[in-house]
């Protein structure tokens, strides 16, 4: 996912150039954006990494250049909300140059869209990206020939190394409106022209395209064209007479454009078959077959998450930061420094048990930081290798049972890092039904990396407890997902995905991406952690905290936990990871039996989403869904937690 950085100011000047990067998913738009602007946009090897439009500005030869990066779209006839967002950024009446980013080895797949973009009457430049891979597969196109035939500049680029980026920028800044608009051939163009003339918008390329999309069944375009062209009904009737429906028209238009594209490419692409990498193909087969694919998932989970995140991140690194850095170095210095403060209340605010240092900074830096960093590192490796789309395919059938499709794998796996980030990414799911189900399951049954790390760290002394905890979560995930799929109205999801090549992750990108995510995460949580410790300090001072804790005690006792566990639940309201970190403290003081620990771990994992997640849920899904999820999660957490506690206490050896 990408986070929007510095929205560009609205004013226009004569020396301002505007470039918009458009293209299919996973062709390297964000990598090019980074090369051009120097701003890092998250780059991965899976389709749908960017869900938001990013803008960046830089100066080149005395001109200010605005660059806009858009989410990928397969065609201008959009399927999802992100594609509509991308289309609005590309197809509007702003003066801008369109940079169509295409994969050099897959020109026949993208050239039809180039032709469609050319019909807009805007300057267009084609960036043939991933040229290095095309060369390796001996599929590098003849760029000069293509450029001459199209009538617009075609520049070969390798965004990851920077090759060709300067030439691309120069071509884009000099680009002019193409002479040949590549309009549709005979049977289609009269219908479009009729609509354009009736609306009196001959000069607007955007309207010409809108007319074509409206005839192809695009609802938003149809509204626009219907309002502007009085002859819409007659033209639509003429279309139906010849092609039976909007869909028939859409297929016929797409076929015609493909034919034009193939004719253009004749001689541009080298002959010969496809030189596939045998090793990658073998790996692909192993990852996709359930017989070998499921053991591979298990290995990835065990080494990547259990050993590295849970073991190295949550234990080795946390222990060192907490016991060595904070206890030995920070605490004495902070103690000495705060001793100079004359007021005891102010002293407590800084260094008390709920103070900014002990709760705010220590929880953030010593407990959460190492775990989250470890997770994002593993996740970045998985992303950049192209493994996640394979996992999506492998799990598609299982996810269909809970009303999702394989595409939900990306937000769900990301949820193991940060639920808040993952809730933002559910936007890439196709239907509202899928988005609601994914939001609910993320809030409920997917522990974030801080929770995961802390819980695994605490439970690691009792492998049985880890197994019980894991089984309960899987059971809740499946049951709640199944019920949601049964009761939420809407069409069942479908699965379709282009599988990117398996690629060796590039260390530089993995590190930059991990760094960008950790920074995003910390900007999000640190103020909340500090605010929480101020609130807890104020609550402690005024007695509200004792009252709130006392109010939670019966609930905590009900599920069989000692009263001392109540504050951890209170913290959980602020941040999921904050609550988990509170639990970490409790376990280290030896206050919990295995049964109580398992119960607490289960309840706190299922328990309410944190404030940040709640805010994102409200923003993305609306208040009604957000409150619904909150109530459902709290109820289910305490019911399941109580049940697990009761069952475990009746088993020997756990109490």
């Amino acid at each position: 996912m990408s986070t929007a950085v510095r929205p560009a100011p609205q004013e226009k000047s004569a020396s301002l150039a505007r470039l918009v990067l458009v293209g299919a998913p996973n062709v390297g738009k964000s990598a090019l954006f980074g090369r051009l602007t120097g701003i890092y946009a998250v780059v991965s090897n899976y389709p749908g990494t960017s869900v938001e439009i990013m803008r960046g500005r830089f100066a080149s030869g005395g001109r200010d250049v605005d660059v806009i990066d858009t989410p990928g779209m397969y065609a201008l006839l959009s399927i999802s909300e992100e594609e509509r967002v991308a289309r609005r950024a590309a197809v509007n009446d702003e003066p801008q140059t369109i940079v169509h980013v295409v994969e050099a080895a897959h020109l026949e797949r993208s050239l039809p869209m180039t032709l469609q973009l050319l019909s807009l009457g805007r300057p267009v430049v084609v960036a043939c990206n991933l040229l290095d891979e095309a060369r390796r597969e001996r599929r590098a196109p003849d760029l000069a020939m293509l450029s001459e035939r199209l009538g617009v500049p075609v520049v070969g680029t390798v965004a990851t190394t920077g090759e060709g980026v300067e030439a691309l920028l120069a071509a884009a800044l000099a680009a002019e409106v193409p002479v040949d608009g590549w309009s549709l051939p005979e049977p289609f163009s009269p219908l479009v022209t009729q609509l354009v003339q009736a609306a009196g918008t001959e000069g607007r390329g955007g309207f010409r395209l809108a007319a074509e999309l409206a005839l192809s069944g695009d609802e938003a375009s149809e509204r626009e064209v219907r309002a502007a062209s009085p002859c819409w009904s007659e033209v639509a009737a003429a279309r139906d007479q010849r092609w039976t429906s909007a869909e028939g028209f859409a297929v016929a238009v797409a076929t015609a454009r493909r034919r034009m594209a193939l004719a253009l490419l004749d001689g541009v692409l080298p002959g010969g078959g496809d030189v596939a990498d045998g090793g990658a193909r073998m790996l692909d087969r192993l990852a996709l077959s359930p017989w070998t694919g499921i053991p591979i998932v298990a290995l990835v989970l065990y080494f990547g998450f259990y050993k590295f995140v849970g073991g190295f991140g949550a234990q080795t690194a946390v222990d060192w930061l907490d016991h060595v850095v904070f206890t030995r170095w920070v605490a004495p210095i902070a103690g000495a420094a705060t001793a100079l403060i004359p007021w005891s209340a102010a002293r407590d605010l800084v260094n008390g048990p709920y103070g900014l240092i002990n709760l705010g900074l220590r929880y953030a830096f010593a407990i959460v930081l190492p775990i989250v960093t470890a997770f994002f590192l593993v996740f970045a490796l998985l992303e950049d290798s192209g493994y996640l789309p394979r996992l999506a395919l492998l799990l598609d059938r299982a996810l269909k049972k809970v009303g999702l499709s394989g595409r939900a794998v990306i937000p769900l796996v990301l949820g193991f890092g940060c639920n808040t980030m993952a809730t933002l990414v559910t936007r890439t799911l196709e239907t509202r039904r899928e988005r609601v189900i994914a939001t609910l399951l993320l809030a409920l049954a997917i522990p974030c990396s801080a929770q995961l790390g802390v819980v695994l760290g605490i439970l690691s002394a009792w492998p049985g407890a880890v197994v019980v905890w894991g089984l309960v979560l899987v059971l809740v995930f499946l049951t709640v997902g199944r019920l949601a799929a049964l009761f939420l109205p809407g069409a069942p999801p479908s699965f379709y995905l282009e599988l990117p090549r398996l690629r060796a992750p590039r260390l530089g990108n993995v590190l930059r991406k991990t760094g960008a995510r950790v920074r995003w995460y910390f900007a999000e949580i640190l103020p909340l952690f500090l605010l929480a410790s101020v609130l807890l300090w104020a609550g402690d001072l005024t007695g509200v905290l004792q009252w709130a804790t006392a109010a939670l005690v019966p609930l905590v006792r009900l599920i069989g936990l000692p009263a001392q566990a109540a504050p951890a639940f209170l913290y959980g309201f602020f941040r999921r990871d904050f609550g988990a970190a509170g639990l970490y403290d409790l376990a280290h003081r030896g206050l919990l039996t295995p049964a109580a620990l398992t119960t607490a771990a289960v309840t706190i994992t299922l328990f309410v989403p944190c404030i940040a997640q709640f805010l994102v849920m409200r923003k993305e899904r609306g208040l009604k869904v957000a409150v619904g999820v909150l109530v459902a999660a709290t109820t289910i957490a305490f019911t399941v937690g109580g049940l697990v506690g009761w069952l475990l206490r009746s088993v020997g050896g756990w109490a």
Partner: protein
Amino acid sequence: MKCTMCGAVPTGCEGCPIGSSIFVSQSLAALVPGQRATVRRLAAGSPADLRKLLALGLLPGVELEVQRRWPAVVLKLDCATVALDAALAGAVIVALAA
């Protein structure tokens, strides 16, 4: 074998409203790995499904090779690899390559 469009046993192409020269066709979901075919027609159940097929590059006239059908259908077309579930694959009517 019968024509999937009209149900008639094909004897020739004269008078067929579809105007295609190949009548004996089947759904992509019925193909096994290794088989090559050409897309003839898209019989998507909804406009949304049709757009997904178009997005994957499945258009009449496109040649493809089936690589896998479980846990989802995986195809090679235009040098790209695409995956789709059985329900979507069922909407793609193809003619087997000779």
